[in-house]
Structure formats: C-alpha cells, structure tokens
C-alpha cells in the first residue's frame, strides 16, 4: 500500500489538504494506493528501460564536452481536470494573440508606443529587438508561431503564467514520449477513463508550418534547422522532423543563391526550401546580418526571408517579447490589443527600472525571486529566502548597476505532486509548460510538459539543473 504524502504548505496536484484524491485524480490515486511502492518501483524501472532503449535523451555540457543523458522521468503522472484545462487553454490562446500583435506592431507602426501603453525607452534598450526586422509583415501577422509558456500553481490553487518562451522553446517531444511511456506503465488506468491524447501536436505543427509557405507553392518543402548533434535538444529536432516528414538540416546544408531563395544541398543538387522551423537563436541565423562568427547559420537567410521567399518560424526578432521585463506588460497588452481582460493572471512583477519598484525590491529582497531579464534555462536566478547575505548583496549591486536587466517576483510556493524518489513517494515541486501554436488559427497541447524538481524542497525544475519530468494527464470528469 503506497503512502502518498503531501507537502503541507503547497497545493498538491493529486491530493487535497486532507490527503484525499482530487476528483480528476480519483482513479489514479486509487490505483497508486492499491499497488504499493514496490510495484510502482517496477513500473518506474520499466519506464526507465524504455527511455534508454528508445534513445530518449538530452545533452548536458560538462568539461566542454556534450554528454547524452537518458531523459529523467517520474512514473507518477500529474493530473489536471479537463474543465479547468479549457480555461487555461483559452487564456494561452488569448495571450499569444496579444503577444503576436505586439511584436508585429513593434516592427511596424509602433502604435503601442505612440499610445503610451509601452515605454519607448524599453524598446530602445531591448537586446532582443532586431532593427533588421523592421517593416517585415509575416503571414497572419504571426511572429511567435511556437511558444512554450511556463505555468505555476500557487498555494491558492491558481495557475499563473511565469514566463513565455518565444525564441526556441523546447520540450514538446518529451510531452509525446512521456505519454508513450506512461501508456505502457499505466495501461490499466488508461483503460477506464478519458485522458486527452497529445499526439496531434506534430500534425498541427506541420499544418502550421505548411500554411506559412510563400504563396503559390502547392507542396512546400519544410526544414527543421538544428545547430547539430551536440545541441542539448537535438533529440527533439530529429523527433519533430521525423514525425512531420520534414527535412532535418544544419546551417551548412543550406545556401542562399543570388535569386534570394534558400536551397539545400542534396545528392541531386540544390533544392528549394520554403519553410524553415529554426531551432537556433536568431542572432546565429545569418552571419551576413547578425553574428559574423556564427557557423550555425546561413549567409543570406535574412535577405531571403525579407524578400518573402522563405518563411521562418519563429520569425527572427520574436524574442523581443520574450523578456522578463516585457512580461510585466502582458496584461496591459492583452487589454490594449484585444480589449479583453486576461484569462490567466501574471505573477506580480517588480520592474527594477522604476525607482519605486526598485526600492521595494532592494528592501524586500529576502522575500523575492530575482531574475535577469534575458537568461533562459533557470540561470542567474536568485531565490531571496535561500540566498546567503553575500549573494543578496551581490544581487543588490547587480540591480543598481543595470536596473533594466532585473525584475523580481514574490516567491510562489510551487505546487507539488507525489513523486517516486529513491524508493519512497514524496511531494516534489513542479511547473507546467504547454505549447501554443499561432498562425491563421491557434492550437494548445492538451496539458504540456510537467517538469519536476527532483531534489527535496527545490524549486528549480530545469532538466539542465537536475529536474525531471512527468506525464501530464488532462482528464475528463463528469
């Protein structure tokens, strides 16, 4: 008989405060309680074996060398009620519509600045604003076609958006692979209830990419552009290309000719490419325009894109809205562009560029999470109540030196779920990254990637820093 314990101070995804199963998790919890830890451990071991033999890996860097590691997976799923999920889904679609309208506006009319909603100086300072993209009008006004937004649930049970990853969000392949594994591990539970499938994602992504092709191309060639086998997400790049029947290319496979069209080098000679799903950062895309030292990119790619001869997803320059400072404005942007109230709240965010908010941050630094505006992967984050005096002083100095680059948020008590750790079931903190597709229409994954901090008490869920993952079940309840 498995003992499922919760962390008293946080919201638990499977159990309520009395330790009873939440309605959507009734069947799963009953199953877990009936099977005992040793059987659960067996299912965990089988799942890990699957991961190893299927070659589901991610790469970590250590001593300058990439090491291919098995994807860390916890066999106990995280459950969300479908009724609740539909609200989250609507909120994410709304959010991405507003963000895309915002990006399109920044590179064109800049109404949002003229109307005084977004400060001009923020745009001038932005390291992710690409002047080279000014005046470009991508199809559907869509720039950030693929977004992974990180959601957390606070002690009150409310979902908050923590950040929007608009550059090259990764993790979606693991959503699909995790489902394959958990279907085998919990075949019995899948048989008795409706768990929304996640498989449609690659089809939806393919449809989106095809829809972006230059006009008049009946059967566009879609390529996934990867930095190569040493990238931490290479597994995912290959996975997506394979599932979509797209070509997996590296920069050196592509060439832009004098006709401003993109071609790939094939055994039959050069062949035109119409749509590129880039998985490299935009500054590496084109050494003619951005970083000259980039060997990952394709000289002339920006030329081809601006001429409308190739579509790029996400569009270069989309990263301007993926910024922890811009984040603070998203509720206003939703109101401004859509004239709607945000359906999912932001985490309250203090912007150090404003003196009053900065002073608040410095005075309350022990109660806040301090984040650099432009780092990803959980790097550079300081959690006030866990930092030493020295670390706090260093953070204050960094904020005073470059206020624009820092934001702060209250420390949320991330929700937990029972997790199998070294043969014992314990509560561990987690977040959720759904993936949102935006083009002529919108699509959101059913659930998303649940990332779990495997270290007791830790709030850092990134796989590069000791995080694991769980399958996410969106369950229909009556």
């Amino acid at each position, binding site marked *: 008989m498995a003992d499922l314990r919760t962390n008293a101070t946080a919201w638990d995804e499977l159990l309520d405060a009395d330790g009873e199963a939440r309605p959507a998790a009734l069947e799963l919890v009953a199953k877990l309680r009936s099977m005992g830890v040793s059987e659960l451990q067996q299912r965990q071991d089988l799942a890990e074996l699957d991961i*190893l*033999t*299927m*070659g589901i890996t991610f790469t970590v860097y250590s001593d300058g060398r990439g090491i291919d590691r098995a994807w860390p997976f916890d066999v106990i799923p995280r459950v969300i009620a479908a009724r609740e999920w539909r609200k989250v889904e609507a909120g994410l679609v709304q959010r991405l519509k507003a963000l895309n309208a915002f990006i399109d506006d920044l590179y064109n009319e800049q109404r949002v600045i003229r109307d005084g909603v977004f400060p001009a100086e923020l745009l001038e300072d932005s390291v992710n604003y690409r002047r080279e993209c000014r005046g470009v009008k991508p199809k559907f006004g869509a720039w950030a076609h693929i977004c992974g937004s990180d959601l957390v649930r606070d002690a009150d049970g409310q979902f908050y958006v923590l950040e929007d990853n608009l550059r090259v969000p990764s993790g979606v392949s693991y959503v699909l692979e995790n489902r394959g594994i958990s279907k085998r591990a919990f075949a019995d539970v899948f048989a008795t209830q409706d768990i929304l499938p996640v498989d449609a994602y690659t089809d939806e992504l393919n449809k989106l990419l095809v829809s972006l092709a230059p006009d008049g191309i009946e059967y566009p060639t879609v390529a*996934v552009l990867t930095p190569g*086998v040493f990238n931490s997400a*290479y597994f995912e790049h*290959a*996975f997506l*290309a*394979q599932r979509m029947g*797209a*070509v*997996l*290319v*590296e920069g*050196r*496979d592509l*060439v832009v*000719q004098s006709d401003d069209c993109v*071609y*790939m*080098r*094939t*055994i*039959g*000679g*050069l*062949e035109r490419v119409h749509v590129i799903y880039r998985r490299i950062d935009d500054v590496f895309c084109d050494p003619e325009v951005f970083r000259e030292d980039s060997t990952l990119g394709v000289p002339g790619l920006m030329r081809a894109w601006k001429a409308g001869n190739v579509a790029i997803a996400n569009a270069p320059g989309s990263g301007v809205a993926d910024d922890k400072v811009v984040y603070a404005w998203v509720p206003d942007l939703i109101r401004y562009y859509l004239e709607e109230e945000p359906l999912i709240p932001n985490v309250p965010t203090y912007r150090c560029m404003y003196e009053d908010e900065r002073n608040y941050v410095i005075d309350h630094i022990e109660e806040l999470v301090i984040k650099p505006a432009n780092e990803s992967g959980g790097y550079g984050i300081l959690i006030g109540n866990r930092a030493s005096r020295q670390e706090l002083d260093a953070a204050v100095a960094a904020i005073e030196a470059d206020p624009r680059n820092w934001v702060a948020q209250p420390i949320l008590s991330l929700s937990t779920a029972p997790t199998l750790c070294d043969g014992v079931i314990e509560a561990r903190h987690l977040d959720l990254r759904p993936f949102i597709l935006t083009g002529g229409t919108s699509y959101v994954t059913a659930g998303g990637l649940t990332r779990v901090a495997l270290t007791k008490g830790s709030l850092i869920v990134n796989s590069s820093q000791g995080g694991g993952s769980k399958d996410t079940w969106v369950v229909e309840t009556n």
Partner: protein
Amino acid sequence: MLLSRVADNLYWGARYLERAENTSRIVRSYTDVIVDLPRSITSSWEPLLAVVGSSETFREMYGAGDERSIVHFLVAELANAGSVASSVENARECLRTCRDVFPRDGWLAANDLYLYAASHRDEGVARRGRARFLARIVSDSRHLDGILTSSMSRDEAYEFFRIGQMLERAEMTTRVLGVRASALLESASAYASPVLATAASAAANSSKVSLEDHDEVQWMGVLRSLSALQMYQRSTRAAIDANGVVRFLLHDASFPRSATYCLQRVQRGLERLPRGADTKEVIADALDVLDSVDPDASDGFSLDAEMDRLQVTLAELHNGIANAYFHTAAG
C-alpha cells in the same frame, strides 16, 4: 531529395555496422580454427590484426601480442577506431543524424546494439564469453538488416545504406583473402626463415606436424570467417581447395558475400541514384578489375598482389561516390 550530409552519414553508418559484424565473424571463426588445430602447433593471433589492417596501431598501443591482448584490441578497445565496440559506437553516431530518414525501429535496433556493446564489450575478450558476445553482435546486426529490408522504402536513403554495406563487405572479403595469401607466402619460406609471424608458419617451423597437412582446415577457416562454408559446399559439391575457394569468394555472382555480388549490388544501387552517370565509369572499372583476377592463381604471390590491386580499386570507388554525392558544391 536526400541531403548530401545525410547520405554521407547513412553510407558510413552502414559501413561501420558491417565492419563490426565482419570483425565479429572473423574473430569468432579464427577462434574456432585455433581450437581445431593440434595443440602441438603453436598458434599465433597476429593474422587477425592483418585482416582488419591495424597491426601497426596495435604495436604502438600494446607492443607484443598474445591472444588476450589482440582480441581485446579487436573487440573491446575504444582507442582502436576499428574495434567492434568503436565501430558500433561510430555507426550509432552516424545514424543518430539520419533519424528523419531512417525507420524508427531501425534506429532503436542500432541504439540497442550500441547499449549492449558498450556495457558488455569486456565480456567478449575471454574465450568463455567471446562466442556469446560476438554472436550477439552478428545477430543484432542481422536483425537491423532485416528491419530495413522489411520496413524501409527503396528510396535514396536505402540505396546509400546498401552501397556502404556492400562496399565494406567486398573490402573485407579481399582482406581475408589477402591475409591468407601472406600466410601462404610465409609458409612457403618458413623452412628458410626463423622469423615467423603467422599460425601457418609458426606451425611449420616449430612442430613436426606440418601445417601443409592442415591446408584444408585453413581454407575452411577462410570460408567460415565469411560465413561461406555451407554455401561453398552446396555450390561446388567438392572438397575444399584453394582455387575453388578463391573463385567462389571473388566470382560467385549469387553468394551475397562474394566480391562480385557486392560490387554488382553497388552498381545497381548507383544506377538508382540521381546523376548516376557521374559514377557509371568508376563502378564499371571496379567490376572490370575484379573480373580480371585469375582465380587459379591462388599461390601466395599472385593472390597477395591481386588483393592489393582490388583494395586500391575499392578505395577509388569510394572516392568516386564521395565526390559525386557527399561534397555537393555550393552551386
């Protein structure tokens, strides 16, 4: 259309896999031959190094060789790029970059083979675990081959895989024959020379039992190491003799490990690729050279020279293919 880089990786992935399988077959059958020889014959393992063309690398790394160190070098040594373990690892690395064109089950099989070889390679060294380890490598490689045969579209990706595989296989056949030729040479001069390196010559010199008596065993070993014994016997219905073996392994058009079979398959593969005209000549030349080898000249001298000539031809064929497809110019 297939990317040039991916074609390159498929071709090499297939070569590395075939190399791992062939080296496994050869070490396995050599072990069998040694076991069959009378104990009065001092056996040497050096010819194994010559077959995979790595005698020099071995001496730099290990110095003198005995059974254990030579088999370790050939099977388990990761610092030896030609070992079974390294070949499997290289094959996996190549195929990892081809996952969008390679059947998923095929990739799983390659990955599985890699995981097995990486964790069990040391068990393949001692005689006790050797047969089991090598048999697993061979059967996993066959398993992968079967998956491709039954589930991969006959597209360009498939042809590049087969071309790499067949070229590697043809090369291994010429190497095995070449080493047999050197053994014959040394055996012929063994009575004069005290410096001996191979099983054949060592035996001839140091024991009253001449290895000449075991000539048939040696040619049988050649057939076995290419998994050709049974098919040879069915095809010739005669005792094993040198000319017959050489003719079979070079010129039999229906045995899938003969050099002729392999090169004809390469030719068919190349014909199915775009711009086949670019390689038409180089494959025709290779087949001409192969045809010109006289199977009755199976004395050591001419066999040795002929195999050298064939290997040079195969290297030219490789260059021809690489130039046509792997280094596509910017245009």
